Structures are given as C-alpha cells and as structure tokens.
C-alpha cells in the first residue's frame, strides 16, 4: 500500500460519502475492518509458510471490500452462508479473530474445535453458517435457511456467497429457482474474482454473470467490490428490499484475488498474466481506494492510518498468539459429535477400535 494514486479534488471525494449515504465515520470503520482482514490473512499466509496451517488455505486478499461492504450492513440476526474462501467473511459477521485463526491451526480453541479447518468455519452464535467445501453446495443450504425465516415468519435475510465458478453448478440453478418461486429472503452473491481456480469465467460461460439469475426472474445487479462504499450502500438497500418480503436478489460483486487460488497455487501464470495481477494489485486495492478517499476528504491523515494499521496488525498477532496458545484437540475429540443422538441397543460405530463412545 505504499504507492499513491493521482489525487482528485477534495470536493469530489467529499461527495462520495454523501452519494453513498455512508458517513466518514462509518467509512473509517470499514477501513479498520478491511485492514484487519488484510493483516489477518497475511498472518495466515505467514503461518502457512512455516507449517502451522495445513491443508488447503484460500486467502481473501484483494477481496476485502466485497466482504466488508456486503456483510457490515446486515443485522446480527441475519445469516451468512459461504464457500471456502471465508476467513474474512467470518470476521465480518462477528466471529472472533482468535477462534478463526485457531481453526486454521487445527486447535481446540478453533471455531469448529479444530475439526473443520480453513474451509469449515462455523459460529452458530453469530449466525455464520459455514464454510462449505463443495463448489455450489452452500447455495441450496442458504435457500433452506431462507425457507426457515419465511416458515417462522421472521424478518431476517440470508446472504449466500459463492465464487464465480459456482454458477455453473446444478445446485445453484435448482436453488435459485426455488428461492424465486417461494419468494425467499435470500441475497445470492457472486464474489466474482473472474477465475474459478485457474479457469477464466469467460471461458466457461457465454453469457455475462449478471444474466445467470435471469431465467428465474430474480432481479440482478452488479457492483464494484473494490469500492467498499458502493458495495456497502448496495447491500444496505438490497437487505431492506429483501427484508420487506421482496423475494430474492442476485448480485455480481466484481472483485479480484491478489493471491493464488489457494496457498499451494501460483499467483499468476498460464491462466492470468502477471501484468494483469500487478495492475489490479496496484490500481484496484479496495483498502487503498478507500484510504485515498478518506485522505482526500480530510477525514484521515498518515498518522491516523498508521494508528489504524497498527491496531490491525496487533489484532492479527493476537489471533495468532491465541492460536499458538490453544492446544490441539484432545483424543476424545476424534469421536465427539459424529452423532447427535445415541439410540438404544444399536451400534453406530464399526471401526472395531473399541475407543468410540458410540458403541
């Protein structure tokens, strides 16, 4: 974030806050959030490099605006369901950084007790409904959570995130059709970073992303996810429209992933050129874009930014310290929560090891 863009006139920058109905104070809060996400993910990257995190680890760096802008306008009793690039979405919904990092480390203090890992963050208390690892598999789940809201006559909404590759799964199409015919309170969000792993979206779809929900009669929109103010304003309005019984919505949040698909994948290469990544990283960083607006409007100075960044780094370090201090799950955790209920007489466990409490 060292570079700076050519400055606009101060008057223009001030208008931005008014135009989106986002106060400078709220904008500063969004900057704080995004910096936390960035520093958290960088800490995870570091921990992965030294073997503290195993398995697959999909970082959200570059997409912070999409997470903060879409989740921060929600109410506490609204639900978020997502796929496996979800660390920062969990933070945005209110899962504490320590338990998220401890989950990445596979520790008992993790949000899923160390049994889910990076791809399966859950926190029922803040209605963060996972962390799902099968592309598109979470879309019917979100639809079912929206079904429950309507069934119980509540007024919450469900925000369902997916990557751009998910829209070619049958699960997506079946779920959106049902959400539409039953007018369910769900917002389906494509975090469109333009590449499903290493496959460009344009190679796997003849129609634009925003057309994907049109067969089902679901109103669709596009927003620039690198512009957190625009994203915030968009989701604030959408949530209210859906909450009023307006039926589902579909949003193409255009964003860009600054890292590889997962920690084990290259940042660029045959599927996307290095100069594209460099250009996006240097010109479309959601944190830098907001910083510049705050600078230009006179709401933030370098010292203020450094103070916010220091807090974010400290919070990320605290999360890592929490994870380091947390012990691995005890051996009893191997068999816990396989089943919710033991039945009389019958055997549920067949591994013959004699260690299972499930008989």
């Amino acid at each position: 974030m060292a570079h700076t863009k050519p400055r606009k006139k101060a008057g223009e920058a001030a208008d931005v806050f008014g135009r989106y109905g986002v106060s400078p104070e709220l904008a500063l809060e969004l900057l704080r959030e995004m910096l936390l996400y960035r520093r958290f993910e960088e800490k995870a990257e570091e921990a992965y490099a030294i073997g503290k995190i195993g398995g697959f680890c999909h970082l959200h760096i570059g997409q912070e605006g999409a997470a903060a802008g879409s989740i921060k306008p929600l109410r506490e009793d609204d639900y978020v369901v997502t796929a496996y690039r979800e660390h920062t979405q969990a933070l945005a919904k209110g899962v504490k950084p320590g338990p998220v990092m401890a989950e990445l480390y596979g520790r008992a203090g993790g949000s899923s007790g160390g049994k889910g890992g990076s791809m399966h963050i859950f926190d029922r208390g803040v209605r963060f409904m996972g962390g799902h690892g099968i592309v598109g598999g979470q879309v019917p789940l979100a639809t079912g959570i929206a079904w429950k809201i309507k069934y119980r006559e509540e007024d919450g909404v469900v925000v369902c995130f997916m990557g751009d590759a998910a829209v070619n799964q049958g699960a997506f199409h079946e779920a959106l059709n049902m959400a539409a015919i039953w007018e369910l309170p769900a917002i389906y969000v494509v975090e469109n970073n333009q590449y499903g792993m290493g496959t460009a979206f344009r190679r796997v779809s003849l129609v634009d992303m925003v057309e994907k929900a049109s067969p089902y009669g679901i109103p669709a929109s596009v927003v620039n996810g690198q512009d957190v103010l625009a994203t915030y304003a968009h989701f604030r309005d959408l949530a209210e429209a859906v909450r009023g019984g307006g039926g589902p919505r579909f949003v193409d949040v255009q964003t860009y992933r600054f890292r590889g698909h997962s920690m084990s994948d290259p940042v660029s290469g045959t599927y996307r050129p290095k100069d594209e990544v460099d250009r996006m990283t240097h010109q479309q960083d959601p944190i830098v874009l907001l910083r510049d607006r705050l600078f230009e409007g006179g709401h933030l100075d370098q010292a203020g930014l450094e103070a916010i960044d220091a807090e974010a780094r400290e919070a990320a370090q605290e999360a890592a310290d929490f994870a380091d201090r947390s012990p691995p799950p005890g051996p009893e955790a191997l068999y816990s929560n396989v089943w919710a209920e033991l039945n009389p007489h019958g055997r549920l466990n067949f591994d013959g090891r004699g260690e299972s409490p499930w008989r």
Partner: protein
Amino acid sequence: MAVMTYREALNAALREEMERDPDVFLMGEEVAEYDGAYKVSKGLLAKFGPKRVVDSPISELGFAGLCVGASMAGLRPVVEFMTFNFAFLAIDQVINSAAKMLYMSDGQFPMPIVFRGPTGAALQLSAQHSVACETYYLHSPGVKVVTPATPADAKGLLKASIRDNDPVAFMEGELLYNFKGEVPEDEDLVIPLGVADLKREGSDVSIVTHGKMVHVAMQAAAKLEKEGVEADVLDLRSLRPLDVDAILASVRKTNRAVYVEEGWSFLGVGAQVVATIQEEAFDDLDAPVLRVTQADVPMPYAKNLEIMAKPSADRVVEACNRVLYRGAR
C-alpha cells in the same frame, strides 16, 4: 390392533408428527396437490396447508439441500424422494452436508432431517428404477438408515426417525405400500431405532435380513418348516444403528446364519453383518455365513430375467440348506 396398509401407517406417522411439532414439514415431488406419487401423503395438504406440505420442482439436489439448510436453521424437514434411485442426484447434500455438518462444526449444528422414499425394485421397472440404495448411505458415518418391513414398524420407526436429531435415510418399498398388517392403536407408537425384531423364532438357522426381504425370508422359513428346519428370522429394522446384540444372540443359538438383502453383494449390508459375526462370534459358527443378494448385474427388464436377478425364497432355502450341510431334497 387396527389393520392398515404400510402406506396408511406412514401417512398416520406423518400426520401425528406434524400435529405434534409445528417445525415438521414435508417436501418433495408430487407430495401435495397430487397426494403423493404413492399416496403416502394423502390428505396432508388439506390438513396442514401448502406451507407444510410442499410440492417441489423436480430438483432432487436442490430440495434435499434446501431441507438440509432448513434443518441447520432449526426446522425438522421430511424429504420425500419419489424413489431413492432419484436421490443419487441429491446424495452430495446428504453425505457432504447433512452427515458431516455436526462433526465439522464440532457440535454446533445437529441435523434433524428424514429423507424417505422407496428403495429397491418393484416390478419390471428396469435398471435405473430398481437399485436398493441402503449401502450408499450406510457407508458414511453421520447418517442413520432405517428399513421398515411391516405397517407397525413403518409407523413406529418413522415417528422415531422424525424425532431423532440425526439425519435418517428412511427406506420404504414400492411393493410394501399395499401390504396390510396389524398396527397397535397406541396414540404414540414410537419404535426406537437400533432394536431388531425377531419376526419368527427357530433354533436351526438364523436368517438375518431387513426391509422388503423380511417377507422373502418368512416365505423361506415356511418352506424350511415343511422340511423340518426351524429358522430364526431376524428383521434388523434399522441398519445404522445396528442391533449387533440381537444378531449375535441369534447366531449363538443356531450357530448358522444367512443374510438376505435386495441389493448387490459387493460391500452390501450382508458384507458388514458377516464381518461383524466372524469378528465377534467366530467360535459359535458351525458353517460359513452365506449371503443371498441380487445378481451382480443391473436390473434387467424382461420378466423372467428380473425374477432370476432378485433374491427369492428358493435361493434362501438353498442357502440355509448349505449352511446346515443338508443335501438337496
């Protein structure tokens, strides 16, 4: 005791559980306005309305997943598959979502949900409508599998399954829906999962089985009786949880066992039961445990070939005679 069909017993269980708990709802293809493809849900739309008896699009993956999400959020869905053969489209949501959610969230999301519908063959429905699907679900920890053979069991086990806090694959049979039997006039007939039922008592050989094949086993036992052989017919009723104690008790009594199942043999239900018997009652056996299963082929259409492919009472009698070391009579 009231005499009712298996279909009526299921209908009564659904009706009673929906009356008892407002969070229970039924979703599936043709369950509402059409009264159910097999009329299991007859009259439920009229009684409970379209919010709780819901016609879905033909989207097995989608509506199974929707109900899994509803279960996560606190409802108790009953999903009707027109047949489990169509549920292959939905199995991702059963195995990857429903069965694993409690574990991968470390206990945050119990998943009370019943997936129900017929499994196995009817008459001449050919290869894609005749698969006995139990094994696909049994393989994965996190899903219970229930296979009632009689109207009373259908009612009592469905009620228990709806109240269970784990996902249950509740497997019926198209050829069972018209089967009549006595059902206790108990206001609240609940049969716990994991308790096998000795449908017939004998001391010479144990025929262990589940679901529709209970009736084939009973026919075989009647034939054997004429030959002077008395068979235990043990109906497992639920496969996971599995009443291992009942299996072992029967084997310890007769020292000989045959497993009868509608599905294929390779890693079938019988394979697990045989493994369990030899691990835990090896010294009680006087003969190898044999299995009677479907022929190891996709189900053929032609009537004669279909009859050849299915397990039959005669094949069960033959297997029993082999474990008894009796020559062909």
